[in-house]
């Protein structure tokens, strides 16, 4: 029965989107941190989605990797700050909060959609089970 594949497909998407939400949470939590581990400022992380085949012509989603954003961090002139460099600049993370919020909304909508897909498929399969009764 091919309808069972809907669970596999939507399930992979739900897991990928939750991974995306995780990185967004990490980015937002560190939006204001000036130094991460190793003294370097935190760098935003982004998930990379790719389609992976489940059955013929259908594809689920998988996270093929997490890339670190290479844009330079924000520099603020604050000589009194303990992390300030010799010119008095503090480098904080390169997280773009607005971008992350937009990403978060997109991820949560996608998550909801996929949960709905599974619910619909479940309802249809349960109805199919009662066929002939």
């Amino acid at each position: 029965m091919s309808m069972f594949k809907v669970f596999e497909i939507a399930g992979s998407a739900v897991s990928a989107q939750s991974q995306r939400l995780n990185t967004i949470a990490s980015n937002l939590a560190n939006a204001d941190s000036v130094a991460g581990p190793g003294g370097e400022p935190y760098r935003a992380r982004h998930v990379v989605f790719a389609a992976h085949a489940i059955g013929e012509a259908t594809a689920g989603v998988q996270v093929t990797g997490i890339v670190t954003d290479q844009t330079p961090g924000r520099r603020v002139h604050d000589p009194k700050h303990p992390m300030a460099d010799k010119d008095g600049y503090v480098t904080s993370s390169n997280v773009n909060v607005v971008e992350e919020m937009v990403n978060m909304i997109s991820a949560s909508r996608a998550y909801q959609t996929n949960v709905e897909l599974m619910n619909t498929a479940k309802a249809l399969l349960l109805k199919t089970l009662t066929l002939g009764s």
Partner: protein
Amino acid sequence: MLDKLDGVLRFHGEALKLRARRQELLAANLANADTPHYKAVDFKFADALRMATADARPAPAALARTHAAHASGRAPAGSGTAVLYRTPSQPSVDGNTVDADVERAHFADNTVRYEAALRFLNHQLKMLLAASQG
């Protein structure tokens, strides 16, 4: 006797199978709504159903072909169930052609039609049961 039973149930059975298949394709489209370079897919349900139920019906009269280059007048085999790419109305920069709203509408539509096919099939089963029980 049994082949007649099969003939009665065949149409809606095939329709149900194709609806399930389409449901799967639409779910894949929605799952990949944020995947770069993913192309939305679908198939023509009417053609696929015609293909699936074709051998149960007598073949339509064929056109006379007096030259090898003449078209046969019939769709090439397998064209009905071919999975086709959707033409995007608003292509996005990352190469993804999924329009989530369109896909969701198709998904809802397909759900209702699946249930309809299921109900037709159920009804036919009940009818056969009533006939056999008298």
